[in-house]
């Protein structure tokens, strides 16, 4: 097995289009088969973008990078994001070094303030004990399209009684136009619409659990192109029960 350095060098050259066709195919077979290799390539690609922004790539590398990555919309968007992250100056968030005396003074002040707060806190805690707002409990499920009512295979979703929100992620069978949004509508078995939402950036919905009684449901998904064209993406049929 090749060592890690060789792997990295090969992956690096792959990303810059510097391998022969046969070598490229070997790298591709590797990342199609291995999650680890795929993620390593994604991380290397990401780092190349930052090195390119910093002008750290050799001329041949820079040309290879620009031809390979900046010829697609995805690549351009990623570069813009990287530029923004760099220009934002992550330095702003960096904890600054402080002299020892300043740290000691801060510690003393902290101790004093803590003592004051401790007293107040004890009183407030008694008053607020029963006013704390609980976090909503969300349960998530992945739905696949294509199943229709009446088929034997039916997606069964068991929702805990204490759940507040049902998060449903829908797998798409095909692409949608760039910039399209999604609209989802939930229908009961008798065709009654119980919930709907439009303007979704992803095929993911969060439905209040309280509106869903044990029943069979159809979640109908549509895409809405920037031109306004609506396209049916299919239905996601499932049976919901409570526990």
């Amino acid at each position, binding site marked *: 097995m090749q060592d890690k350095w060789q792997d990295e060098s090969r992956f690096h050259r792959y990303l810059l289009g510097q391998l022969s066709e046969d070598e490229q195919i070997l790298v591709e077979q590797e990342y199609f088969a291995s999650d680890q290799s795929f993620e390593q390539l994604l991380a290397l690609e990401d780092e190349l973008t930052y090195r390119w922004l910093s002008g750290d790539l050799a001329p041949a590398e820079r040309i290879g990078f620009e031809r390979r990555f900046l010829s697609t919309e*995805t690549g351009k968007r990623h570069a813009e994001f990287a530029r923004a992250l760099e220009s934002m100056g992550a330095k702003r968030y*960096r904890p600054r070094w402080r002299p020892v005396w300043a740290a000691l003074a801060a510690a003393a002040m902290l101790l004093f303030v803590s003592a004051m707060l401790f007293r107040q806190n004890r009183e407030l805690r008694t008053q607020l004990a029963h006013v704390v707002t609980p976090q909503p409990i969300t349960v998530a499920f*992945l739905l696949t399209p294509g199943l229709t009512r009446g088929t034997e295979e039916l997606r069964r979703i068991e929702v805990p009684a204490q759940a507040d929100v049902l998060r449903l992620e829908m797998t798409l069978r095909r692409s949608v136009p760039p910039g399209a949004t999604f609209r989802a509508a939930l229908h009961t078995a008798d065709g009654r619409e119980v919930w709907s939402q439009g303007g979704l950036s992803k095929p993911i919905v969060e439905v209040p659990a309280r509106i869903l009684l044990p029943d069979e449901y159809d979640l109908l998904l549509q895409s809405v192109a920037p031109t306004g064209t609506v396209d049916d993406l299919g239905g996601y049929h499932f049976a919901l029960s409570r526990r």
Partner: protein
Amino acid sequence: MRERRNWDLSADAFDRLLAFLDADRERAAEAYEQIRRRLLKFFEWRGSANPEELADRVIDRVARRLMQERELKADNRYVYFHGVALNVLREHWREPGRQAEPIEKAEPVANPHDETARWERLERERLLTVLEECVRKLAPASRDLVVEYHGAGVQIEARKSLAHTLGIPLNALRIRVYRIRAALEVCADRAMKQISETGIPG
């Protein structure tokens, strides 16, 4: 000839495709997403300007074969998709008007430091604003790591030194930072989309 698009797949063909990927439907759906992601990157890394369309073609083709042959012999199903993807890529290069697309012949794009090639100022300012918010939402450990990583500079020696300080290999550090940056990008994309749709930041 233009192929039938992915959305012509029948429910039956799609079910069979999922069954080919895994007997468990939920795991099959995850495998499908993983394969699609790899296909998109494959076509992107091979210099195609429309990776989505080509990835759809591959999926279509495998699904059609499954409908015709019932069973496909593949030691590794992910690698099987790669084989089909290579064929689709080669056919794509041979299509009329596509010959110039292989990256070796592509024109270099504009220099990143050229002001005219950048986004409009307003878009950039919006992106910076949402990104700042996304960074703020990061867990403190992740935020510190990204800050340290960027602060260390891009030179490999600086990164090695940071990896050494953290007691992890350089590759592990790179992947850790990549995951955080990828999460930031998703966060920023989502917020930008929301602004463009509603005019209101998320």
